[in-house]
């Protein structure tokens, strides 16, 4: 399996990468989504602009109100990051559940969300984390709310002439009380169902919740009906049964040879409860 011919260019800064990026070109991060797609010739760019050597993009910085993860940070470096473990445990936990050791050593968060595979782990996790996506373009940079970023099947708010440079995670009370649970496809380790949950509590009572899913529908989504139903109650089995009944009520559920529509919908409820029981 050999990709179609292309020109390889290595960029030493985001500015240089933006100036190199032509209409039919692609940005290369860790390459773990793009290179397999190019081998299948689903993608045939004229040039690849490699941003994997830009050290600045790999940094994870702990600021006062947010933690900023460089788009080029690998899943392995995110999984090992102490501030993320403390302030947004689902981020570090999910990073350590992606693929396998080799994939985590090379794959990047920016590359994963630019690709936006509906069964990838990051989209659900970033939706639940209320993240902001920082995007650079020729005129400067812009920040997009995660709720506006993921738009559909392999579709995001990223324009062809733009590059994701960072992901900002707020240090909120909900993110400090968060986790990720997934039912894994055992060969690829993609999520058949992945549920990320971030809950803020006042005593035993839930004051805010963000519950998001990967793998269930053709795009990642927040289960807003569940979020609303959780509010004001506790996380008892009785309340979870009631609140999690609507996990798939806003979406059409995927069906494939790994899991039927009915089984996936069932798993979504099971995994939402598993996540919420831990919080």
């Amino acid at each position: 399996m050999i990709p179609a011919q292309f020109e390889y260019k290595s960029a030493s800064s985001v500015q240089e990468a933006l100036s190199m990026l032509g209409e039919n070109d692609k940005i290369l991060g860790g390459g773990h989504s793009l290179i397999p797609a190019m081998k299948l010739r689903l993608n045939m760019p004229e040039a690849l602009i490699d941003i994997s050597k830009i050290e600045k993009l790999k940094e994870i910085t702990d600021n006062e109100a947010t933690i900023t993860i460089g788009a080029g940070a690998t899943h392995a470096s995110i999984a090992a990051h102490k501030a993320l473990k403390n302030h947004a445990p689902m981020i570090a936990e999910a990073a350590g559940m992606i693929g396998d050791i080799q994939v985590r050593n090379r794959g990047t968060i920016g590359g994963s969300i630019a690709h936006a595979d509906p069964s990838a782990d990051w989209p659900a996790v970033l939706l639940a984390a209320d993240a902001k996506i920082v995007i650079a373009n020729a005129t400067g940079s812009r920040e997009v709310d995660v709720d506006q970023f993921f738009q559909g099947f392999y579709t995001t708010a990223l324009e062809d002439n733009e590059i994701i440079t960072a992901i900002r995670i707020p240090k909120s009370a909900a993110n400090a009380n968060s986790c990720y649970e997934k039912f894994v496809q055992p060969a690829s380790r993609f999520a058949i169902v992945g549920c990320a949950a971030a809950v803020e509590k006042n005593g035993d009572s839930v004051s805010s919740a963000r519950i998001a899913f990967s793998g269930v529908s053709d795009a990642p989504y927040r289960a807003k009906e569940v979020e609303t139903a959780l509010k004001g109650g506790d996380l008892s089995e009785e309340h979870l049964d009631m609140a999690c009944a609507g996990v798939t009520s806003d979406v059409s559920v995927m069906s494939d040879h790994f899991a039927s529509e009915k089984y996936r919908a069932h798993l979504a409820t099971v995994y939402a409860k598993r996540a919420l029981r831990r919080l």
Partner: protein
Amino acid sequence: MMSNRITTTINGQSVTKEVEGRTTLSTFLREDMNLTGTHIGCDTSGCGACTVLLDGKAVKSCTILAAQVDGSEVKTIEGLAQNGQLHPLQAAFKEKHGLQCGFCTPGMIMLAVDFLESNPSPSEDEIRHALEGNFCRCTGYHNIVESIKHAAENMSGVPA
């Protein structure tokens, strides 16, 4: 053909070569460097047979471009033995019958080198988890796990 000049250190030796953009690291190692110990199994980053160390980290060389390793250090299965002495992982795979057909073995060993560096005395469960990205189609995981456990015991205190 659009080619790129790369300079990389492979198994301790500096190498400068012209590579086509689309040449993967696995193909480069096998066809340009004649290092055929790195096997290509699935060629889709699933099976782990092509695992090598890139700057000390285990990676799947079928999903990295050769052009990307310019300036980096690559270690393959051929670079593990020192002065005719097998690496403790190689010796353990031999002693504990961790090889069956042998196809997956180089990838298993290269992954284990990285894994034992970060976790020098793993439990059996941790070893099985670490092998998530390495497939053995002889279905002989048991002796592979035993081999890694044995190597970890032998390597404790000994720099890899």
